């Protein structure tokens, strides 16, 4: 029973802080709200028996990516409310468009086939042992390719960040 309440609480908090990310005036506040949203999503991972993924999610997103965002915002000196806003017409059309997307997605997924409750449910799939076995047995080539991707991203970021490219 407490799991259900926890799910509702985390879902409510993630939707509320997700909306506050979009509507916050100050970009620094947006980053902080997004960090809270990521923590609630990590809570959902724990509820779904993906404990290792929850830890990695907090480390990678809240620890690395959002610090990078904060660093860039401080570097660009955007921590004040100088942002020019779109016109009211554009804001209204953006809201209507995303609302329509939500309605279409919910309507199309409502009658999709459902998964019956698993009889022999394995609670250990989220542990690091099983994830490592799957990663290095079935996904070895994508794992290596992702390392090349990270190397390329690092080289690209360094080259873009240089003062002038000769």
């Amino acid at each position, binding site marked *: 029973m407490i799991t259900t309440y926890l799910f509702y609480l985390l879902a409510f908090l993630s939707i509320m802080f997700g909306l506050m990310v979009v509507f916050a005036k100050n970009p620094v506040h947006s980053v902080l709200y997004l960090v809270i949203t990521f923590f609630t999503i990590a809570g959902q991972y724990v509820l779904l028996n993906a404990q290792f993924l929850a830890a990695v999610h907090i480390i990678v997103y809240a620890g690395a990516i959002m610090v*990078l965002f904060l660093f860039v915002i401080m570097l660009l000196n955007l921590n004040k409310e100088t942002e020019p806003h779109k016109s009211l017409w554009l804001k209204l059309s953006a809201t209507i468009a995303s609302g329509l997307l939500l309605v279409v997605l919910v309507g199309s997924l409502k009658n999709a086939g459902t998964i019956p409750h698993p009889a022999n449910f394995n609670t250990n799939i989220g542990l690091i042992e099983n994830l490592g076995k799957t990663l290095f047995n079935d996904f070895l080539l994508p794992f290596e390719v992702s390392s090349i991707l990270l190397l390329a991203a690092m080289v690209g970021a360094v080259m873009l960040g240089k003062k002038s490219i000769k």
Partner: protein
Amino acid sequence: MSAIFTIPIEWYILLSTVLFSIGVLGVLFRRNAIIIFMSIELMLNAVNLLLVAFSSYLSDSKGQVFVFFIMAVAAAEVAVGLAILMMVYRNSKSSDINDLSKLKW
């Protein structure tokens, strides 16, 4: 403590859909390029949540491994994207995406 026995998967699908729509709203609603990047992160996380939910309900750890790859791609995307944003800011002194309309004719 497992959510899988008490909560049907439709709730997770609904939550992911709402979070994804909030991300789309952020991309359409704001003009600050950094906020648009953050909304893209929110959309990626909605998809991650759905992958983890299906992986947990089907007792298959492949979905959770996919989440790792999405995280790697997101980290690479953020690093390159913020570097591009720094270049744009250095050249145009703003992070407003409406200044980036030179390719429009």
